[in-house]
């Protein structure tokens, strides 16, 4: 009869598996957790395709134009430095002469003029062009959508809620929200008391058996539809 593995056997197995590339290359090896922000960026792009049409969404790299390359940041940066590093952004053709740009991890200027990182920022193209030309951060009150992404495998610490309340107060974006992989009673209680409905979106993950990711995408599509129809 085979014996059950000991705790030490199991710990060795965990160590060996983690060390043998058992996680994706872009796996959680730092707190930024790039894959989660890229996933949310993908939801924004997919919502745009549904509202504006598949042929109305493409990627551009400043200085190079339309590209099949999506080169995305894994650390926050300035929109006017995108060309130097070859970073791409998504472009949405809303209507004749009307374009939006979706960026991952750029600094935007808050109402206080303090720069904040916007994990996902959707901006009118005219504001993006101005910011690149002038070498400044886009103004947050010109953002159509700003998403703060927080990935935690376990419950969210209360610091996430406290910090977002501060950020929410200084970002002037038309629609701004905190999107997270999980939640916690403390955070939900705090944010539901202080933020408007829809400003906190927890449990957004792919294939987790819940509808939150689909609901978020539908909400973003509504935001795009409202913008297009005004």
């Amino acid at each position: 009869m085979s014996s059950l593995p000991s705790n030490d056997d199991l710990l060795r197995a965990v160590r060996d598996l983690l060390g043998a590339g058992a996680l994706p290359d872009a796996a959680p090896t730092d707190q930024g957790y790039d894959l989660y922000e890229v996933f949310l960026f993908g939801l924004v792009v997919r919502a745009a395709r549904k509202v504006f049409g598949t042929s109305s969404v493409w990627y551009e790299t400043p200085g190079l134009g339309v590209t099949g390359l999506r080169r995305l940041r894994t650390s926050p940066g300035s929109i006017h430095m995108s060309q130097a590093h070859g970073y791409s952004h998504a472009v949405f053709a809303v209507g004749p002469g009307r374009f939006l740009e979706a960026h991952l991890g750029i600094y935007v200027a808050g109402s206080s003029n303090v720069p904040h990182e916007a994990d996902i920022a959707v901006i009118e193209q005219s504001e993006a062009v101005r910011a690149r030309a002038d070498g400044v951060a886009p103004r947050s009150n010109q953002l159509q959508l700003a998403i703060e992404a927080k990935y935690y495998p376990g419950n969210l610490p209360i610091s996430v809620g406290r910090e977002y309340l501060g950020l929410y107060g200084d970002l002037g974006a038309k629609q701004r929200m905190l999107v997270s992989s999980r939640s916690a009673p403390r955070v939900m209680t705090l944010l539901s008391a202080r933020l408007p409905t829809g400003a906190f979106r927890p449990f957004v993950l792919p294939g987790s058996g819940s509808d939150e990711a689909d609901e978020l995408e539908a909400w973003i599509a509504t935001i795009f539809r409202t913008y297009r129809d005004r």
Partner: protein
Amino acid sequence: MDDQEIERVETRLREILREQGLGWLVSDVDELVVEGVYEVAAKRKGGGETRETVERPSDARRGVSAVRPYTPSERVRLLLSSVQLAVEDAQRLEAAVVHMLVEPQPAEPGPVLLELFDEREERTVAYVARDGQERAPQSRRSSEIVGSLTALADNLGVGDTDAR
């Protein structure tokens, strides 16, 4: 399993996670441990009070808020479940990202290449679609890690590793 063995395993697991680049996860768990377990002290009809863990925001209205420390079992369960969920999430997130951003679309020049570029470390993670074929994530034995973590939780008597 006694608290001494639970704490020994917890210490060793923390070391392994830090060695393998998951120190941030240990820090996240530590932040939750420092916060303690959120409870309410609710008055009972016959007198006295009862302490109940707050699971939902509505629970918070049942009494006065209180905090108690995590027990060793709760701490190690929190750590094990966090690692398990991080492993499972990583696999699903990668598959979703490849599906949403690498799959070529009409009116796009091909082939499609998705790069996540870290300019501080000059590290690139790339996913490529050639000839309209998605690059499926490789099988990375994540189910084996999850199996080991579940077995460890069962050995320690802290099973049911759903952190949500």
